[in-house]
């Protein structure tokens, strides 16, 4: 690799490569799958979406670039502030949020006309905060009050705030935090107890939700789960059927770029079902490559963790990579009908403005950590943890 690349793009080159390939894939797939949108809203001008996505990807890559130059240490204090902001943001969204596809997840930035999902902010904030507490409390981590409670309270709070509008994100974030705690040596007994409590709360939530069957998202959830469980050909399963058709007709090597026909039948082919379109156009091969890219990301991050001398960056990199990978997994599992339909975008690939930026930021942070790791780290006030294994 040229030194030129090395001079500006620091950090793990493999992760950089993953980011760039995913962005390129995103451009192709989104351009191909926005055909119907283009006809509906922009008089058939498909270039509109090409340019739009180009701009978004450009901005996204800039965010990756900028965040990767910022020292990860910033997030140590920042995490508390971000988390502090997230809670009221989520509350406001729940109450006043703009409804898109009947889910109130979006908040408009006053004056700018930009909407963003507050849960995206909260996700980042929570991962940072959990990393911070995990590293801070490593010494007392086995203790209930010292180690466990300070972790569980913010996790539970954020997840519960996200839950009513976006079940899958809440579940995903909860799972990521759970794995982080598991890796972070939190007492397994407490973890399991916490899980049990979570399940109990969820059960209670469902019971309460059922009383308001016609309110908000409850009806959608019930339909989706019923459809998935019964394999019924109902209205809700239309998406899954069409997605399967896309996958089935793709074959091993696919129909070729821009040749998807299912994009005209699938709702949201550019976000929730982009994986199906990718498989249709690039085949099993293309699909496997996308899968592999997220796997590589995860394992490069694991490598960072392995080489980390500090706990905070290690947890942070691991947590963020985990979140991205899980999100990708959920998106793909929906496309192949392994789980009920839910709206998780494919990180970096799906069209969608702000969530792309937050994913970019996550990648930037991971790269920042690996960049720092490449230098010999100096003691920065954080207590090194003794290896007592």
């Amino acid at each position, binding site marked *: 690799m040229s030194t030129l690349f090395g001079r500006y793009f620091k950090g793990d080159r493999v992760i950089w490569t993953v980011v760039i390939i995913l962005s390129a894939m995103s451009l192709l797939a989104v351009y191909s799958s926005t055909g*119907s949108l283009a006809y509906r809203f922009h008089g058939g001008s498909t270039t509109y979406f090409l340019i739009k996505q180009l701009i978004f990807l450009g901005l996204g890559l800039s965010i990756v670039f900028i965040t990767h130059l910022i020292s990860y240490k910033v997030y140590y204090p920042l995490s508390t502030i971000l988390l502090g902001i997230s809670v009221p943001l989520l509350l406001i969204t729940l109450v006043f949020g703009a409804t898109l596809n009947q889910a109130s997840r979006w908040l408009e930035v006053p004056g700018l006309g930009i909407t963003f999902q507050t849960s995206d902010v909260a996700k980042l904030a929570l991962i940072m905060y959990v990393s911070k507490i995990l590293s801070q409390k490593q010494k007392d981590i086995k203790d209930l009050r010292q180690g466990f409670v300070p972790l569980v309270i913010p996790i539970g709070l954020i997840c519960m705030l996200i839950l009513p509008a976006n079940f899958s994100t809440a579940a995903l974030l909860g799972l990521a935090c759970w*794995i982080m705690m*598991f*890796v*972070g*040596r939190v007492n397994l007994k407490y973890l399991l107890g916490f899980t049990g409590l979570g399940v109990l709360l969820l059960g209670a939530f469902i019971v309460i939700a059922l009383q308001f069957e016609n309110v908000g998202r409850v009806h959608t959830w019930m339909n989706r789960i019923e459809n998935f469980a019964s394999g019924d050909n109902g209205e809700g399963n239309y998406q899954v*059927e069409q997605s*399967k*058709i896309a*996958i*089935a*007709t*793709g*074959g*091993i090597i696919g129909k070729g770029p821009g040749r998807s*026909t*299912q994009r*005209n*039948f699938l709702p949201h082919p550019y976000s929730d079902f982009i994986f199906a379109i990718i*498989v249709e156009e690039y085949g*099993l091969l293309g*699909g*496997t490559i996308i*899968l592999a890219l997220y*796997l590589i990301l*995860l*394992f490069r991050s*694991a490598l960072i*963790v*392995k080489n*980390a*001398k*500090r*706990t905070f960056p*290690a947890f942070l990199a691991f947590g963020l990579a985990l979140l991205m*990978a899980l999100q990708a*997994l959920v998106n*793909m*599992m929906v496309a*192949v*009908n*392994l789980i009920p339909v839910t709206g998780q975008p494919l990180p970096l690939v799906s069209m969608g403005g702000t969530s792309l930026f937050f994913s970019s930021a996550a990648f930037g942070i991971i790269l920042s950590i690996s960049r720092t790791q490449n230098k010999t780290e100096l003691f920065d006030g954080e207590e*090194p*943890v*003794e*290896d*007592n*294994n």
Partner: protein
Amino acid sequence: MQLNITTDKKYIISGIIILVFIVIIVKLFYIQIVDSRYKFSANNNVLRYITQYPARGLIYDRNGELLVANQVVYDLMIVKNQVKPFDTLEFSSMLGLTVEQVKDAFEQVRKQKGYSPRKSVVLLKQISDSSYARLQEVLYKYQGFEVLPRTVRTYPRRIAGHLFGYVGEVDESVVKEQPYYQQGDYIGINGIEKYYENQLRGVKGVNIFMVDVHNRIKGPYEEGRFDSIAKVGKNLISTIDADLQEYGEKLMINKIGSVVAIEPKTGEVLAMISSPTYNPELLVGRNRTDNFRILQNDSLKPIFNRSIMALYPPGSTFKVVNALIGLQENVLAPSTRYSCYGRYTVGRGVGCHNHPSPLDLEHSIAASCNTYYCHVFRNIIDKREFSSIEDGFNNWKQHVESFGYGNKLGIDLPNELKGIVPSVNFYNKYFRKGGWSSLTIISLSIGQGELGTTPLQMANLVSAIANKGYYYTPHIVKDIEGNDEIDHKYYEKHVTSVDSSYYKYIINGMDLAVNAPAGSGSTARIAAIPDILVCGKTGTSQNPHGEDHSVFFAFAPKDDPKIAIAVYVENAGFGATWAAPIASLMIEKYLKDSISRPYLEEYLLNANLLDRRAKRK
């Protein structure tokens, strides 16, 4: 390493994640390679298959007269999305409907399974010619409507409804089992239409068009390379003589029962009447379901084809069978005489009527002496060479079955019944093993008791007698257009278990029954036709439903039989009173095409025997 993330935990987590990834890939593979369902669906998304319905094959009578033809009707189709607001009043009045009915039709369409506003669906089925003519001129004003021609049946002679059956839309169960059919297709539901469905229906064609997302046709797919042309169904020539059939139906008006006429040399069915019959036009078109319900609820069961589905005791006509078996088994000689004093006196006894006595074989048939056949029957069953009654009975049963009784003959019509010839097991159960003898089952000697035959089986029996010992399976279609032959089984000769040399005595007896001078005790003199030697046998069969059934079977002419006929009139009384003259007129009509005895015809046409039903109840 400073972090004590244990390697175990790392492996667990990465293991789980890799597993999930693998599951996704496997599922991808499954959808792509293993499960082929979605590939077909993919084509359905971009292609629209428009079916070309072929005209159904026509059905002719044996002389080439058209009996079942086609007429064009029109299904009014809509694509909901393309319908613009229109003048509902004008539209409904053109169709001869009220505005409410049209709205109702729209409502119905919307409720249909699999309804899509982008698909072409049937709004109104089979609109009439005149409605179509009016509509056609202004159809351009109504966007989203189109008219699809379909053919339905029409019957120029309005006869033989039971034989032709009818055509209707396929059931969902048929669609599931047979991939050829799709919802809305027509299929033969009964009679010839059902039996010869595969020949009559032809082959559907299909035009494939490319459509856009809104299901609008963009043009033929691949320039029509994969289109197929509909093949018209094959025409059938039936064995029915339309004039004879119509005449028979006329004679049977106001009578319940059945007439079956067969050409003995070929097994071709010349006429098959089940009365009361119905006008086949009733089961065509939009009113079919309503009319069907009315016919089905009729207490006289007009839809029920008695010729092949009703089981009657054969009555005295069965005596000829016992006579033939007796001759074959050597327990009876043509010269054997039995005295009769009005009663067979052994056991509970069997009554007889007044006739000269003693009689030989031929005269016993002519006079239909019950006593004579009690002797014959018991001699057959109790023949010394059999060690038990069971062997004797089985031997008798085998003989009976060789005449086509107790089994389906195999006519080319659906739902034929096999009739009843009782078995040893039946009697062993009904009485007990060893608890019955030839005397217990003496009713069988005169065709009563546990016997059940269809009118078709009786006509077939008389046909076998006319042929002196063989028959061809009766059938109703003699030619299929484009095929060299019909089913091979209709060319196979079935030989009875009685030697052909014995038949002449029976035939002479049947000749005497019709043609002996008055005062000789002959039972069927009413059936005699000037210049034609008719051989026949009457029957009067007791039944639990009321007055006796009037039965007669016959063939003619004696030396060169051209027609064999069985007539059954329910609850009409003596065979000679009603069944014999009907058979006689039918024979004359067929052989001479004119009627020499108008008084007899008049007498029958005016008779109403419906009210005799269940008088005895």
